């Protein structure tokens, strides 16, 4: 998948949840788990797309067949899928939750943007997607029409989308220690208040599954 690794885990008892929700994955050798969006929910597998940007994600992307890691989830609020004409928009590693969403929405129109051709190899996860590589940005190829946008990507992309499509459902990121509301470390400003992104997000404007989070034990 270009520079990204597709980490496939046997599902165990975990439910895949809703597209846009995430799991906390033990990163071997690190103290804290790492949040990862579910990329694909196969019958007996949960798959995650990992961008090896630091020690935790490097440890995750170098796991080998047979290794075992602790995983918990699904967590947070996912995308609202009962929309009239969905359009998926993804940038870079932010495409991670979109293959699962594309499956659930039966291959809706999709536009993906990447830094390089190498990165764009990950677009093969959504065969029907239209793909651009910098210096072209996804916001330049949004199809005309009245779409319900579901998006995940780098902050500048999300900010740009928010201006173009005010009602867009956007999946944001923040550093997280726990992923289930315990540490108050992941707060971001929402409506003038600092709120926990792991509980009130990561998808904002999306479906609310409400706290408390589902059973973790």
């Amino acid at each position, binding site marked *: 998948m270009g520079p990204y690794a597709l980490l496939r885990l046997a599902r165990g008892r975990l439910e895949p949840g809703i597209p846009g929700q995430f799991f906390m994955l033990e990163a071997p050798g690190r*103290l804290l788990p790492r949040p990862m969006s579910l990329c694909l929910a196969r019958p007996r597998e949960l798959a995650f797309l990992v961008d090896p940007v630091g020690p935790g994600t490097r440890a995750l992307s170098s796991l080998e067949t047979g290794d075992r890691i602790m995983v918990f989830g699904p967590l947070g609020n996912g995308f609202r899928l009962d929309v009239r004409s969905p359009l998926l928009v993804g940038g870079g590693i932010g495409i991670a939750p979109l293959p699962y969403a594309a499956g659930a929405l039966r291959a809706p129109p999709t536009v993906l943007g990447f830094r390089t051709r190498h990165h764009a190899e990950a677009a093969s996860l959504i065969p029907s997607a239209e793909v651009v590589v910098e210096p072209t940005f996804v916001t330049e190829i949004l199809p005309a029409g009245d779409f319900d946008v579901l998006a995940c990507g780098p902050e500048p992309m999300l900010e740009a989308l928010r201006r173009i499509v005010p009602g867009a459902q956007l999946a944001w990121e923040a550093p997280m*220690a726990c992923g289930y*509301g*315990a*540490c108050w*470390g992941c707060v971001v400003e929402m409506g003038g208040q*600092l709120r926990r992104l792991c509980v009130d997000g990561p998808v904002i404007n999306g479906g609310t599954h409400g*706290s408390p989070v589902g059973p973790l*034990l």
Partner: protein
Amino acid sequence: MILNASGCLDALTAPDVARSLDAFVTKTVTLLPREGNAPVRIVETEVGMLNSIGLANPGIDRFLSDVLPRLEELGVPLWVSVGGFCAGEFGELCARVDSHAEVSVIELNLSCPNVDGPEESVAELVAAARRSTRKAIFAKLSPVTLDFDSAARAAQAAGADGLSLVNTIRGLALDARTLRPVLSREVGGLSGPALKPIALAAVHECYRATGLPIVGMGGICTGHDALELVAAGARAVALGTILFSDPAAPTRIAGELARELSIRGVSCLDNIRGAAHEPTFSPKPNPQLEVERLTVAR
């Protein structure tokens, strides 16, 4: 007895985790609502993590009207952690909590490294709390002292019923690329495995100095870690950072602790509490002590 460490679990977003504890400790509540510090608030380090949450909480009014009734529904004994910016505030907070029968213990957070704390001494703060409530009071002390002995005795003399040991220690993490502080407030409180030897020393010293019931915390990850804190003198242990990576830690650690006891043939925790203080070996004089230069064999 296994508790959560204050600020390391929200019982309302994770009720099952809270129910797996012997008591739930709230995040520190202050008189006025606090939004807390700006993000970035957390960062991982090699052997721990730093946080600068800054006592984000709804304030005592909303806590008592909105949060406490929902916590009560959990059916778990409740400890309320309170934090004041002067002795008067500690007194007022304790007076407000005092009338709530569902609260079994008040923990005084005398040691948050992320806000400018009160100027008064531990003794004055505990005394102000003592005058305002008949509930059991646990004083949570900072590990940043060379003299636990005096701090613990002062808390005891002022009327503390127990001690919570330890809070986090101020630390700094730099971004690998920019060499600028990662946290927006620059410094934060260090928690996790790095804290365990410090917590052990604090519990050991305060147990010897006061004999008060102690909740031991700091870097507990396993049943063996918990056993060590009990051996140093803790009556209960509290789990903090480990809950972030393992929400099932309370049940796991209780099981591991039970196995540690059975391996040692100890029937209950009380029988091993303070074991670190018992003299276990008396050096015998060596009957013969010969000195010779020996050659390494081929």
